[in-house]
Structure formats: structure tokens, C-alpha cells
């Protein structure tokens, strides 16, 4: 959780009425992110670690921390598997 996520520079994205749409401009694939996924994505700034982002999300969402950490772990697996983010 001390690793720092970075957005793939080939990804273009926009927040459309509370949901984020991501497009991989190289292969044309698109993805959607909802509530927690949106908040996570918008907090990725190439400096914050996963722990720091999780702390920010914990302040933002009224959920159990254990559950939030599990959600973030699942999310980061999906994001890295689809080459949307890399971990430094």
C-alpha cells in the first residue's frame, strides 16, 4: 500500500455527471468508473501512495476502513490488469 499509482498517459478520461469514462487512446478500449472508483481515479496524482489515497477516501466516504481497503485492493488489481495505471 506504500506504492504510488500513476495514470497511463495514453488514457484520456472525463467525469460525466458523476461517472468517469476512460478511453485508451492507443487501442480504443473504453472503461467506466463509478463512485469510489471515480474518487480514487481523481486522487491519483503520481505523488500520493495507495495508503494516502485510501486515507483521503476514508474521510470522504462513511464506510468501514477494512471494507474500503479491500475495495481499493480489488480496484487497483483491475486498473493495473487493464493497463490503466501503473504502480511505482
Amino acid at each position, binding site marked *: 500500500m506504500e506504492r504510488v499509482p500513476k495514470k497511463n498517459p495514453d488514457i484520456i478520461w472525463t467525469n460525466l455527471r458523476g461517472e468517469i*469514462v476512460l478511453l485508451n487512446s492507443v487501442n480504443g478500449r*473504453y472503461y467506466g468508473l463509478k463512485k469510489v472508483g471515480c474518487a480514487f481515479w481523481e486522487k491519483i496524482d503520481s505523488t500520493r501512495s495507495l495508503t494516502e489515497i485510501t486515507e483521503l477516501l476514508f474521510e470522504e466516504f462513511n464506510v468501514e476502513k477494512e471494507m474500503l481497503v479491500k475495495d481499493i485492493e480489488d480496484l487497483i488489481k483491475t486498473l493495473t490488469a487493464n493497463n490503466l495505471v501503473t504502480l511505482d
Partner: protein
Amino acid sequence: MKNYSYIFDVFGKSLSISGDWAPCLKDICSWYAMPQFERSNAPELALEIAGAKIEEIERRIPLPGTGYKIRSGKIVANQDFDFTTYIDGYKQWIDYAGAGRIMLDFSKGSALSLICSDAMLSTYQKYLFADYSLDKLLTSRGIFSIHASCASVRGKGIAFTGNSGAGKSTAAFALMQKGMSILTDEKLFIFKDAEYSAGSVSDIIKVRYDALSKLFAAPDLYHEYDVIAEEHYLKLGGSKTSLWKNRVTLKALCLLEQTGKPKTEITSINPTKLVGGLFPVTITGVNPEYRAAKFGFIMEMLENIECRFVKFGTDMDDFAVKIEKLADKF
């Protein structure tokens, strides 16, 4: 060989189509339904379609190295044709092995298609060597195609998208049967002037034989452009009851889903739900800059037009009434 030369008005841009390949060009004015352009000194876009021997293709359109290859596969037409696509900056090549080759130069707004074989039926040649090039050239000029049908309902553009089989064509034809004009049942061009506009370059629609009598009260009214494998290519414009329109202000985009129930239900929807039906295929064939431009354009459009979820019922009278009521709101 005879040389053909036409200048069309494609949503306010002049497009020259020329060359000597008769199977594509002799009736291109029937394939497309774009008006002629008044002024023709220096067309903004140019598409040349010419015949060539295979060795001449290599000389006139040399391919870039394999490092520029972005995609390859098979196109299913009257037979399978292998294709490979290459992109290098503002240039793109599509090689149809043994059939022909295209080179697009987006900076110049031009495309050269060389065809070396009659193996591909002329209607498919028009799709691959004319329509494809035109689509990509328009993309480079801020006119973007999406997979959607569209009708003009009381002069307002209502477009329908959705997965394959969701009823895009059926929805458009149902509205046409109620006297409303349609623009397309398949490929819709979107661009922005004062508002978002929707347009179509062709009035030819493709209908399967078994759907003809269900969708059209009088299919004989329409000129049959071609028939391939039980699919009828009907030309809507020019008939006595012409219900085709090439341009309309786009007011709403609807995501269709067939329910099998009689009545249609229309509700609001988050625009992100429409993205899936709009992008596949069409966004991959151009360079990353144009993909990004198309993405940005469509996202902004979704923010600014009405988005609806249409549970598409089987009662077409009910569907038409509800779409008319929807149009009245805008």
C-alpha cells in the same frame, strides 16, 4: 478508361470524388445522397478511386514498415479479405491483400484508393474504398460517425443507439412508417455548428428479406439499389414518398433495449450508459490525436443533449406516439 469526377457538399465541406474505377464511381451519385457543391476551385477533401495493377499499387502506395502496423484481420464481404492497417503520424494505410490499397493523408484531407481486382462485389468496394475513407477524412475535420439510427421527429433529431439487435433499424423504420423522415439506420455523423447536428451521407438502407414486409408497408415504393445474400439495399430518397433527410439538429440520444412487452417506456439515463454503443470499432481506425478529439467531442455532446433509456416495446404505434411526445419536450 473513363474518368469520373464529382464535387459534393458534405455538411458544408467540399468533397471531390474522382478516378477511373467504374464499379465504384459510375453510380456513386446514387450511392451517396449528398448535394453538389456550388464552388469547386479547391475542394477541402479529395477522394480518388482508381484501378491499378498489383505491381503498380506497390509503386504508387508503398507501405510503411511493420513497426507502423496497428491492426490486421479479415473483412467478411462476398468472401473473406485479409486487411492490414498502418498509421504513421497523419498518414494511414489499409492494405486489402490482393484486392486493393488505400492511403489517407489527413493533413491534406485526401485519400487515394487503388483497386486491382473485381473479386469484391462493387457494393462492398464502395463500403471499403469510398465510405471508409470518407469517414476517416471527416473525422480529421471534426465530423464524427457513431453507430446509431436517427429520425427527424417534428424537425428534431432523435437518435437511437444500443447493442447489436437492440432495434436501432426497427425503431427508425417504425417512425418512418408513421410519416417521419429518417437519416440513417446505421451510421450517423455528428458535428457542431450553432447546436449539435446529425447528418447522413447516404439514403441507402440495408434490410433483410424476412424483415421487409414487417418493416415496410409498401417496399415497392423504394428503388432497390442492390440485393446481396437476401439483404436488400433500398434507396429511400427520390421516391414519391421520400422520407429521407440528410441533416437535422440533434436533440436526444436514446439507448434502446428490446423488452418483448407491448408498451414502450422512456426514462432519463446517465449519459455514460450510452458510451458503449457509440465507440466500438469506429474509434480505433485513426491516429491517437483524432481518437482523443472524437472522445472529447462525444463526451461534450452527451453532456449537452438529452439522454434517454428506451425500453423498446413491440407496439410500434405506442412507440411512435411516445417518441413524438419526447420530441415535443425539446
